[in-house]
Structure formats: C-alpha cells, structure tokens
C-alpha cells in the first residue's frame, strides 16, 4: 500500500528501547570522493573514499511516572563529572514505521554535543548531535 511517512511514523530507540517524547531526529550521510582525474582528461573522475554518518535529535526533557528521563540519559553522555571515555557510546536506532514494517538505521554513536535550556513559557528540550562510529549495524530504511 502506498505510504507517505510523517513525523507520526518516526521514533528513536536507545539500546533497542523506544525513547519517549522525541520531537525530531535527522540523519546525514556523507561520502568523501577521491579525485582520479589525470592530465589530458576533460571531465573529473572520482573513486569512493570514506563514508560517515552524523545526525541530531531533539527530545523533550520529560520524566515519566517511573522517573525515567530519556533526554537525561543522552545528556549524561557528555554532561558528567568524569571525562568521556571510549565506552561512552550509544546504540541508536532511527526508525520510520508503518505499523507493520520498520524502516531502521541502527548504529553506534558518540554524542558530540548536547544543549538544554529552560525558558519561561516554553517546554525544556534537549538537543543532541551525534557522530556515528563504524558501519551501521542495520539498514532497512
């Protein structure tokens, strides 16, 4: 069945568990290209180089009845009393789902920046940026 995906179909999972109150996520993929143009060529030619992925997400700073706060979990990857170590990775899954089929991209990331604030009359949101390390574990998008 034809399907247009919207924000209602999106979700963000940490360690396979759906995070609550996610306002948005985005993913960027990039591929470096290595130029192989030689003298005498009229058009540039390339070979593929390294690829990488990065992205961002925005979560409401929300604690549920069990005091679970997913935004806080991600914020604490950076905002911590000790330095960030190599093990401070996160297993993120970006998902679009039509209810039956999940379109996933799952990878290990380092949270590279976080921001959170509080303003009168506004809901506090945590914005995070992440950098994927290694190859995606799952790509069904």
């Amino acid at each position, binding site marked *: 069945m034809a399907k247009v995906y919207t924000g209602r179909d999106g979700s963000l999972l940490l360690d396979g568990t759906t995070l609550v109150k996610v306002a948005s996520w985005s993913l960027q993929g990039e591929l470096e290209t290595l130029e192989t143009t*030689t*003298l005498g*060529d009229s058009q540039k030619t390339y070979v593929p180089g390294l690829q990488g992925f990065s992205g961002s997400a925005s979560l409401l700073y929300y604690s549920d009845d069990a005091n679970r706060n997913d935004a806080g979990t991600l914020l604490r990857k950076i905002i911590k009393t000790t330095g960030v170590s190599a093990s401070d990775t996160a297993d993120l899954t970006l998902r679009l789902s039509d209810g039956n089929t999940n379109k996933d991209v799952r990878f290990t990331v380092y949270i590279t920046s976080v921001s959170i604030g509080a303003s009168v009359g506004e809901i506090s949101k945590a914005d995070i940026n992440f950098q994927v390390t290694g190859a995606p574990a799952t790509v069904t998008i």
Partner: protein
Amino acid sequence: MAFPSLAPTVRTFDAGEYPVKNFRSQSGAEIRILYGSQRTGMKLELSYENISDGQAQSFIEHYDEMNGTYGTFTLPSITKTGWTGSSGTIDVTTGNAWRYESAPQITSVQPGISTVQVQLIGVL
C-alpha cells in the same frame, strides 16, 4: 619492466641547464665558459594521485629494477598526456636519459588507494 604506463595527475618539468661556468672578476666583469653543447639536468616530477595499491607497487618494482638511482630509462608517451606542444619539449633531449633522482614516495590514502610521487632527472 618499463616505467609504469599511467597518466600522471600533476607533472612539473624543469628544462635543465647547459654546462656553463661563470667567472666574475673583482671589477664585476663576467666570463662564461660553455663546456658542452647539450642541455642536461632536466627534472621531471610526476604525481599519481589516488591510484590503486597495485599500480603504486609497480613504481617500486621499476625503481628496484633500475637499482634505485643508478639505471637510466625512457618514459612512455602517456607520461606526457595533456601536453599539446611538441612531445620532445618536456622530455630528455637527445643523448640524455631519465634516472630516479630519489626514491618514489607512496602515500597511503585509504585501504587500496595510494598516491605516488616520482622525481626524475635527465642525465647524459
């Protein structure tokens, strides 16, 4: 084994010198003596960017075959690709041959891809 037949990415040619010796007196007058009629010492720098490791390896194999900077050789015409002037202009002149001025340098760019830089000098 001949010099690898690849089109370079960057080519720099230095036309060399005639064997001239200059003598300058205290008065400032200059005397020049020409010791030979053939230009020599031309230099050619070739860069091969983002080639396969196998192609890069062929430069080292040729360098070995030439016993490093000892042996002389000629270059395939593909090394002059893109030059629309007379091909002899950017090659060694008659009586000269190329030899390695230094060992080829290989820079590994990523798995399977390398960049090679070769410096040659024309000798009589």
